[in-house]
């Protein structure tokens, strides 16, 4: 289970060009948006692409992203429940 969280952190750092971050810098419950990692609306769209590409999850409503992308923990929970890859 912790592998998925590490995998997610690695993907996010790479996909979102978070050059100044290492996996160790991101806590599982850190806020991804707002004051935490400071991700923005384009990052949110990239995360939606990531969900589909890496885990086969297609969001029917992009607004769902707001509940899923709260933290690494929340993302991992959602992926574990819905992944098709």
């Amino acid at each position: 289970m912790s592998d998925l969280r590490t995998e997610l952190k690695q993907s996010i750092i790479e996909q979102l060009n978070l050059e100044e971050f290492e996996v160790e810098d991101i806590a599982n419950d850190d806020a991804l948006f707002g004051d935490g990692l400071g991700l923005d609306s384009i990052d949110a769209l990239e995360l939606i692409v990531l969900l589909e590409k890496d885990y086969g999850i297609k969001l029917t409503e992009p607004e769902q992203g707001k509940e899923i992308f709260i933290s690494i923990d929340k993302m991992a929970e959602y992926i574990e429940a819905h992944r098709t890859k």
Partner: protein
Amino acid sequence: MSEGYKISDFVRIRNQRIFHGNKQVFSSEKPTQGFLKESYKFLNISYPKFHKMDALCKLGILATEVLFKNREIPADTALVFSNSASSLESDKQHRILMEATVSPAVFVYTLPNIVLGEISIKYKLQSENAFFISNRFDARLLTDYSEILLDSLKASAVVCGWIEWKNAEYDVFLCLISKEGRLSFSEENLEELYHFENE
């Protein structure tokens, strides 16, 4: 007519070197992506968004970092940039991804004026923007338009110039135009400065 505007400062980025005025401030052996990264570190820029940008925008951020350092830049400083390739390098990237998975973070950079937006955000410039496309550096167009903005009080200062990223090569020449400085803002002077180090 021209009210005696001056080229207050200028920056040049080309051939793995950065010039502030006529003085070389940085050089690197690295090819483009490495050069951009090293320049960012050398200039001590602390702006994580930099890493998300495409090369055209990174070049704009590096150039304005040099140009604006230790200066108070009025919020109405207009940005009048130009190039010949538009955002073609990012366009080609998006074109490749279209065959696989499109990336919104790549697509957003497929417009040449995004670099004006990135600079505006970093320096909080709520000012006039214009991005012109021309085959070659057009000193007359840049001089005329910048003067018009200044004369009509639509801007109290202008950053004008050329910012090209084409076939993996870059060529940046940006000038800060205002009432301060010794060098007269004219088509001839702009042309001369652009060609300096361009031989």
